[in-house]
């Protein structure tokens, strides 16, 4: 029973850190850093999927949300502009 509580503690910590990463991604003015914070949030969600007993979702979600989407967004940033104006 205490192993179950340990899993729930890990889930709570991971989701709280992901909220912090989302906040940092939203308030950040440098878009490259915002994309990196978004990739951090995706990695934490992958851990959450594994803990919620959906490992197949985790296996699909890692290459899409940590690899492909930040890569494409970084290409777009390099073609356009990097800083968000106030």
């Amino acid at each position, binding site marked *: 029973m205490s192993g179950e509580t340990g899993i*729930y*503690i890990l*889930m709570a910590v991971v*989701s709280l850190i992901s909220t912090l990463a*989302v906040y940092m991604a*939203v308030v950040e003015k440098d*878009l490259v850093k915002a994309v990196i914070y978004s990739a951090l949030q995706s990695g934490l969600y992958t851990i959450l999927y594994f803990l919620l007993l*959906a490992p197949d979702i985790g296996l699909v979600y890692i290459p899409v949300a940590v690899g492909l989407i930040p890569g494409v967004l970084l290409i*777009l940033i390099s073609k356009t502009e990097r800083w*968000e104006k106030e």
Partner: protein
Amino acid sequence: MEIINTYLLSVVLASLLANFVISLYAIFFKPHYIKKIIALTIFSDTANTFAIFIGYRRWINQNPSKVPVLTDLNPRAVEEFAKLAVDPLPQALVLTAIVIGLAVILFLVFLGWILYSHYKTLDMREIRRLRG
């Protein structure tokens, strides 16, 4: 012990709701196009996580759940499996939603590139001023 487990799962639910609210705020009120795309990816991921969270079924069976992989085909084992395993239907739906979301994000990225080549900026306030 039970109340601690329920409290911890409520913390997970509350932080997912906070992610929803923050990403919706960013979609509507942040002026930069790429920031809107980033917030849209966070929003769709949070919606998918909600579906997985409902499929965890802890609110129904009150037992530690199992991964939805059936290894034994004997009928009694199947009955036990249906009682204890997490729901595989949201997982299948989320798998499809992730791939469709990737296609939508790629479309929006190329739209942003064309937008920049037309207006030389991606700030939505500037684009609204320059239009027409």
